[in-house]
C-alpha cells in the first residue's frame, strides 16, 4: 500500500482555531494532495485526544466526518497517548491490508493545555491508577521522569550537562529551515545551559514545549493507486507494540519498575521499530532517515542507542562530533519535537508526513539527498509504541 497524500498544519499556538478546524484543514489538503475525492474515502482513523474536541468522547473521526461530509465512511478513534498518531496510521494500514478499504485517511489534530501536561479529566482516582498516584504521592511531571533518566545516564556513561546542551543545539539547528516548525532558531549550548532549570538536570530549552498542530495522510491500496497520477511512497512496514516485562526505563506514569538486567529499555518503541523493519524486510543499515520522539535532550542521546541505531554509550561521541546520525542513517532532519513542540496525538502523523516529503524528494531545505528508506519511532502513555517504515517508489 502507499501514501498518496500528506498535509500538515504549521506547528505553533493557535488560540483562534479549534482542533476540528485544524483537522479539517489537513484532511482536505491531504485529499487534494492525493487527488482523491471525499466519496472514495472508506474510513477515517483519528488519533483520539484527551484535551480537546471529539465531542468530549474522543470521537475525533466522527466529528471530522460530520464537518467535511456525511458520506457514511467508517470512523475509528484510536487512543495511545502520544503514540496515537503512529497507531492511527498503523490501524489505517491494517484496514487496507485486510482488503476492507482502498482509501483510508489517518488524522491527528491537537490543541495542548498550557504548562506541564496535566492529568486528563474524567479518570478514576484509584490506587490502581498510577497516573493518579504519581501526582498525589510524588508530584512528578513528565520531565521529572526524563530527568531521572538523564542523571542516571550521567552516572552510567559520564554524559555531561554540556553534552546534553550540545545535543539540543544540533537538534534545533536541523529545525531552523523547517517552515512548519515553531522554534526556528539555534540556541548555543551556553544559551541552553543558561535557560531556566525545570527538572534538574534538564532545563527549559532541553525539554520539548507543547504546541498545537495537525497532520493527515491518505493511504491507498495498490489497486487504487494505479488510478492515481501522484507521487507515491510505499508503506513498507507499520507496527504497534506495547512494552515488555522487565523494561529498564523509568516509564511515565508509573511509580515503580520491575527492572531486570536483561530487560529492554524503552521496549514499547524498540519492539515497534524491530517489527516494522521486519515487516519491511529491511535492516537498520538500509534506513536513510530516522525520525524519533526527542521529548528531551536525554532522548537525543538515549533513543538512537535504545532503538538499535547506535551502540549503548555511543551517542556522546556522536554529539561531540557535531552530528545527528550514525554515518549511515540521518536522525531527525525535521528538527524533531524540540523544534516543533509536541502536539501529542498529531506528532506520529507529522513524522510520516515529513518522511513522505523526504522520500518524494520535495523536502526543500530539509532534504536528505538520495533518501529511499525511512522510519518513524514514537512513544505514548500506557507503554505504547509505534513505528512506520516508508520506502520510495521508482
Amino acid at each position, binding site marked *: 500500500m502507499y501514501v498518496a497524500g500528506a498535509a500538515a498544519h504549521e506547528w505553533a499556538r493557535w488560540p483562534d482555531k479549534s482542533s476540528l478546524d485544524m483537522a479539517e484543514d489537513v484532511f482536505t489538503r491531504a485529499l487534494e494532495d492525493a487527488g482523491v475525492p471525499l466519496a472514495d474515502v472508506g474510513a477515517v482513523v483519528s488519533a483520539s485526544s484527551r484535551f480537546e474536541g471529539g465531542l468530549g468522547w474522543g470521537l475525533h473521526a466522527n466529528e471530522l466526518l460530520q464537518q467535511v461530509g456525511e458520506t457514511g465512511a467508517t470512523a475509528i478513534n484510536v487512543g495511545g497517548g502520544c503514540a496515537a498518531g503512529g497507531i492511527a496510521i498503523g490501524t489505517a494500514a491494517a484496514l487496507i491490508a485486510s482488503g476492507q478499504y482502498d482509501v483510508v485517511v489517518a488524522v491527528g489534530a491537537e490543541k495542548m493545555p498550557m*504548562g*506541564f501536561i*496535566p*492529568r486528563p479529566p474524567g479518570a478514576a*482516582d484509584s*490506587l*490502581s491508577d*498510577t497516573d*493518579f*498516584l*504519581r*501526582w*498525589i*504521592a*510524588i*508530584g*512528578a*511531571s513528565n520531565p*521529572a521522569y526524563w*530527568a*531521572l*533518566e*538523564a*542523571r*542516571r545516564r550521567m*552516572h552510567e556513561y559520564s554524559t555531561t550537562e554540556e553534552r546534553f546542551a550540545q545535543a539540543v543545539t544540533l537538534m534545533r539547528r536541523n529545525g531552523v529551515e523547517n517552515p512548519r516548525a515553531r522554534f526556528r532558531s539555534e540556541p548555543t549550548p551556553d544559551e541552553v545551559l543558561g535557560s*531556566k*532549570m*525545570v*527538572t*534538574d*538536570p*534538564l532545563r527549559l530549552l532541553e525539554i520539548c514545549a507543547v504546541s498545537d498542530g495537525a497532520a493527515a495522510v491518505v493511504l491507498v491500496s495498490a489497486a487504487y493507486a494505479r488510478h492515481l497520477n501522484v507521487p507515491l511512497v510505499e508503506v513498507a512496514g507499520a507496527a504497534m507494540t506495547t512494552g515488555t*516485562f*522487565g523494561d529498564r526505563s*523509568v516509564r511515565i506514569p*508509573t*511509580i*515503580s*519498575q*520491575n*527492572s*531486570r538486567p536483561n530487560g529492554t529499555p524503552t521496549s514499547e518503541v524498540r519492539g515497534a521499530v524491530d517489527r516494522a523493519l521486519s515487516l519491511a524486510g529491511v535492516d537498520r543499515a538500509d534506513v536513510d532517515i530516522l525520525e524519533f520522539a526527542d521529548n528531551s535532550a536525554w532522548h537525543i542521546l538515549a533513543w538512537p542507542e535504545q532503538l538499535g541505531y547506535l551502540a549503548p554509550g555511543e551517542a556522546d561521541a556522536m554529539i561531540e562530533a557535531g552530528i545527528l546520525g550514525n554515518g549511515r542513517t540521518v536522525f531527525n532532519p525535521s528538527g524533531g519535537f524540540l523544534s516543533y513542540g509536541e502536539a501529542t496525538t498529531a506528532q506520529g502523523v507529522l513524522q510520516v508526513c515529513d518522511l513522505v516529503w523526504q522520500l518524494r524528494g520535495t523536502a526543500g531545505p530539509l532534504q536528505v539527498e538520495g533518501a529511499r528508506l525511512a522510519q518513524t519511532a514514537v512513544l505514548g502513555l500506557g507503554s505504547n509504541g509505534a513505528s512506520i517504515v516508508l520506502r520510495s517508489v521508482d
Partner: protein
Amino acid sequence: MPFRKSVPVIEGLLDIAGEVGLLASVCITCDTIYLPQTSRCHDPLCLGVEVETCLVGRTGVLLSWTRQVYQPPAPFRMDNWSPHLIGLIEIESGLQVMGMLATDDEAALAYLGAMVLTTRSLYLNDDGDDVVTYAFAPAPASASALHGAAL
C-alpha cells in the same frame, strides 16, 4: 500542642501505623514485588498468578534524582510547596521505586547512596489531619551498613 493525626495520601499505598512501609504485592510463585498493590503477577513467563500483600521499601540505594523546580499541577497538593527532590530508589532486587525525597539538600545525595523510607507531610485536610506521602531520606551510616548486610 494538640495531637495531630497523620493519614496516608491514599489508602493502600503506605502503612504508617507502625514503622512506615510501602504496601506492595508479592507473587507467591516468582517473588516479583509490585507497587502499588496488584491482583496478579504481571510477568508473562511466570507460571503463577496469585499474589499476597507485603510491606517493602524500608531501605534501598539511590539510582538517580531530580528537583521538580516548578509546582506540579493538580491533583498534586502540598501546603507551602517549594521545589522538591524526587528520587529513583532500588529497594529490593529489581524493584525500583520513584518517590519524594525527605531532604531538600541535593548535596546530601550520592549515586548508589543508601536511603531509608520515611514519610513527608503534604497538607492538612479538612479534618485537620496531616496528610503524608512516602519519602526516602539519606541513611545514617549505621543504616547504610545494615542495608549492605540485607542485600
